[in-house]
């Protein structure tokens, strides 16, 4: 899925996958920080947005 979405032009770094156990609090915290930083760095999403004003 990640490979396909990046193939059609979703920026690498916008989509993240992770497997975290409920006992892995540190890993959860670290992953959230990493994901947030990586997505923030890319800026607001430009694709796959449905502009209601345009559609309606």
């Amino acid at each position, binding site marked *: *899925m*990640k*490979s*396909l*979405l*990046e*193939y*059609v*032009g*979703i*920026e*690498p770094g916008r989509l*993240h*996958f*992770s*497997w975290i156990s409920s006992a892995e609090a540190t890993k959860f915290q670290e*992953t959230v920080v*990493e994901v947030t930083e990586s997505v923030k760095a890319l800026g607001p999403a*430009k*694709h*796959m*947005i*449905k*502009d209601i004003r*345009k*559609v309606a």
Partner: protein
Amino acid sequence: MEAVAQKIRETAAKLLSEGKVDCVIGYAQGTVPMRDYPYFAYTPEEAQNLTWSPFCCNNLANFLIRRPKGEIGKVAIVAQGCVSRSIVGLIKENQIAREDVYILGVPSPGMVDRRKVQDRFPLKTITEVTVDGEDLVVKGKDFEERIPQKEVRRDNCYTCVQRNPVIVDEMMGEEGPSDWGGNIDAVAAPWEKLEPGERWEAFIDEVDSCIRCYACRDACPLCYCHVCFVDEAMPQWCGKTQDEADVATFHILRAFHCAGRCTDCGACESACPQGIKVRRFTSKIEKDIRELYDYSPGMDLEATPPLSVYRPNDPQEFIK
């Protein structure tokens, strides 16, 4: 080619008159040139309408499924390489039983892309196209021209790796060479060559003309869900408008549902009334599955589809 068609007609008539099958699924000549269509022969007389040509672009495996239980018993089906691979896939997914299908195997001649032929005669009406050896004879009101078939084949037929049927009950003609020699890796997933920033534009440019008719889905033997995700209204997974986001969602998900199952038969691309190259998505997935799992769908009845099992050594670089 005509010899194969004759053999199909004879065998179909024999099977039907002996009562071995209730129906023979094959192709019949279309009412417009280059549009041979799926045909269901229920009697030996109807079997005489069956044909075989380079214009048989539908995947007949599609008609083995979605039929009311018990309505039709055993059926015979005309199958070239890709159709037989789809049948293998359907057997593996428990959609059909091997003993209910009698496979009339045909070596694929490589199907012709009618758009490529039409493009050679802009603004002209083609009234007749016949096959003469390796060439097509294209006739219109005031023109007649020969085109070599190999110049106007469908994209997926150039890179076919399995022209002969994988499983067969009776062969209709000699097995030909197994592939057309094209290199699938060289042409699959064309947008990989683009920079990530350019891909979205190329993608939207391609699907821009999509009218959401779902012909690609309906032509596909893999799409047999009773309610497709695009038809579901509660909840509505995917919007029904022609907005960029909705069209993109449909195409991405349609392709993804075929992951590890698509045999690259090209029926979706042939069915598209807008000429959208929908294989640009499925070929990417087909390539990924081949590279990540070393698997080609439908080649082996015994092989386990990679996405239906977990193996400890499955690639998982994408998971953090």
